[in-house]
């Protein structure tokens, strides 16, 4: 039995210790907003926060985590979709199919915590998630929009 602190709640999970965190989140905890895309930390669809940092949960065994680490999934980023990144995403109509977007949003939120005003180079180096629909330009615009408090119009 492992204790995990997910979205502010301590959850006890009975799981093989080498199970990736992603599958514990999806299958044991039932939080399916975090997506499986590759299983080898390439695409970032599985991105969650661990103590505020973006982590690709598909490639980290659950045994690597302790109860005092705060894990946050897309469901816990805000109670009602009101995180500045989520609001910027809504304002700029960023998602297309949306499958990569939880990971994109989590990576972007972590970037903004780390660098409240990221420049293009920061975005290029930190946002390495794959989006097959091609939302990259809107992701970039929305990160900047969120950084500026949602005040600057796109264009």
């Amino acid at each position, binding site marked *: 039995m492992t204790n995990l602190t997910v979205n502010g709640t301590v959850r006890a999970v009975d799981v093989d210790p080498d199970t990736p965190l992603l599958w514990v989140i999806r299958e044991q905890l039932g939080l399916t907003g975090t*997506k499986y895309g590759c*299983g080898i930390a*390439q695409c970032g669809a599985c991105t969650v926060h661990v103590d505020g940092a973006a982590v690709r949960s598909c490639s980290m065994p659950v045994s690597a985590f302790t109860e005092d680490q705060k894990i946050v*999934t897309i*469901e816990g980023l805000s109670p009602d979709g009101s995180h500045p990144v989520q609001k910027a995403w809504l304002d700029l*109509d960023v998602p297309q199919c949306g499958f*990569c977007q939880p990971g994109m949003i989590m990576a972007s939120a972590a970037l903004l915590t780390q660098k409240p005003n990221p420049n293009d180079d920061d975005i290029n180096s930190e946002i390495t998630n794959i*989006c*097959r629909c091609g939302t990259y330009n809107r992701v970039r615009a929305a990160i900047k929009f969120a950084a500026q408090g949602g005040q600057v119009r796109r264009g």
Partner: protein
Amino acid sequence: MTTALAVSRRKFLAGSAAAVGGFSFGFHVPFGGEASAAAGTTPEINAWVMIKPDDTVVIRVARVEMGQGSLTGLAQLVAEELDCDWSKVTTEYPTPGQNVARSRVWGDFQTAGSRAIRGSHDYVRKGGAAARQMLIQAAANEWKVPVAECAAANGVITHKGSGRTTTYGKVAEAASKLDPPKDVQLKDPKDWKIAGKPVKRLDTADKLTGKQVYAIDVKLPGMLNAAIKDCPVFGGKIKSVEATQVRAMPGVKEVVQVGDTGVAVVADTWWRAKTALDALPIVWDEGPNADLSSGSIAEMLKAGLDSDQGVFVGSQSGDVKAALAGAAKRVEAVYAYPYQHHVTMEPMNATALWTNDRCEVWTATQNGEAALAAAASAADLPVAKCEVYRLHLGGGFGRRSTSHDFVRQAVLIAKQIPGTPIKLIWSREEDMLHGWYHPITQCRLTGALDQDGNLTGLRMRISGQSILSTVNPQGLQNGRDPVTFQGLNPSGTEGVLGYTIPNLLIDHAMRNPPIPPGFWRGVNNNQNAIYLECFMDELAHAAGQDPLAFRRKLLVNHPKHLAVLNAVAEKAGWGAPAPQGVYRGLAQHMGYGSYVAACAEVSVGDDGKLKIHRIVAATDCGYAVNPQQIAAQVEGSFVDGLTALLYGEITLKDGKVEQENFDTYEMMRINEMPQVESIIMPSGGFWGGVGEPTIFVAAPAVLNAIFAATGKRIRTLPLKNHDLRKA
């Protein structure tokens, strides 16, 4: 049995909805017998429109949403004619089973070929207009006034004489009992208030919070999970499986064979199923293709460039042989396009529940009716005893219309465990190894220039794979695959060659390697546009002419092709100096009924490093139902098209695909994404597609710009295989 299950599913749904805050916005997720949750309590005005007493409008959408925005666009078209309050619009997918049961009242469910809107705009608008008339009639009946004295706007009906008003919600019940009108008048698009406007997508909010349920997220009570391996060599099958070795592993419930070619492990969780599957000793009979390689396929296609066997003509005029013989200058080049994978972000998956008399499937499909047929066939049950529930797709790009192999497999597994829902998820590796790949072709082009540099003849020989031969042989025309000639057709409304060339021969030596081909966003337009537009650039340079001026002369008879080309040239500043070190390239093409062009700006460093700075792209799709979503599709299609150009190549060794995940099958990421400026220039009078067309011009525009920058003609994809340092 079935009833009990339906009840338990409903209970479950209520529980899960509460847990995630309810499906309050966006899409109803159909579970079990509740496919039309609103039906029964909500008056159905007609197949397209239901209106609740609180004025909520539920618009039924037959085509699926996979990111392309047609869910919103189709709802806009219905809402426009309905004259309802857009802020009260929600949407719902009817099921394929309901479509069968109601004599296909919703028409085609297929979401492919950029046809969602252009293929159904007429009847969905009529659905909205008919519902509007019935609602007004119901109000007039209630007020006992002539219907001509009543009008509707924004979901409110007004009697002109008395000023009395009511709402759609109040008269919906009465309207649902009226006979539909025999004929309806559609609005002139210039009068549109909801359609044609850049309204926000209807499906965004749930995609930001994790609430959006994709097929891979489906949960059913008692559900088990399956991981599968199908023979990695095309045409191979299972020789033996040592199931006893994994049956005792944690969580494992069953090890089952899936047809002759696959084996699946069923466990309590997918991770445990996959772990056991990876430990399962499987011996394959690799079959007749065990020696197949990319090299042997390339040889097969190369032979087709010179062959007169198995050749089909696409377009022919004049006497190209004589033109080439009499040319002042002949230009010749051979191009090639590789296999590529769709790589949807959501891997293939389906959940199936089979009992003796019923089979239900939850999945992401671009063709619900084909999914239903696949389910019924695998279930060995009549279609009427099967149902498919559609969920939003985590990407489609043609993969989920080409084949429903994943549905078949899920049902074949579920059939071996009756009464238990089985969710089958393909690992990314399984997905990469079992694609329906962008077909492979080569092309030799020979052009004749006269002494004034006019193009007097063009010979274009395509050699390679036909999609229809494998996927839909009934679509062949006396053996000829018409889809091969996309964008090269002499006439028609789908994809016409814009250049007028007096002596022309385009033909196809059909060569079909035993690799499953599929419809891949843009399909054969992708390579045809590269072949033609890069060769046009070669011809222009051979003629000593500006590539824009050279094309303009040849496009005189096709003003729409010319207009998009002119638009990008003007906006990009063609003819004016580009920034230092930056070079431009052009391309134009017509496909899926739309006209597109692009101008790319690139630089190539001394180290050969390519940077794509800017793309200007123009689209004339006739009518623009949502300009904002069209812009998103244009941006997205450049990501897809440029990824294909930069990295896209599936290779084969020993009959097996060599690329199994994103580490060996790279994707363009945000750092490589150019600025994209889209020009949406709907000229009216026709309905063209949007989801695919601009992808055609992505690669050729960049390739032509690379030539301008380096003097190098790159004639094979992907660019990762090439050294771009100046010669």
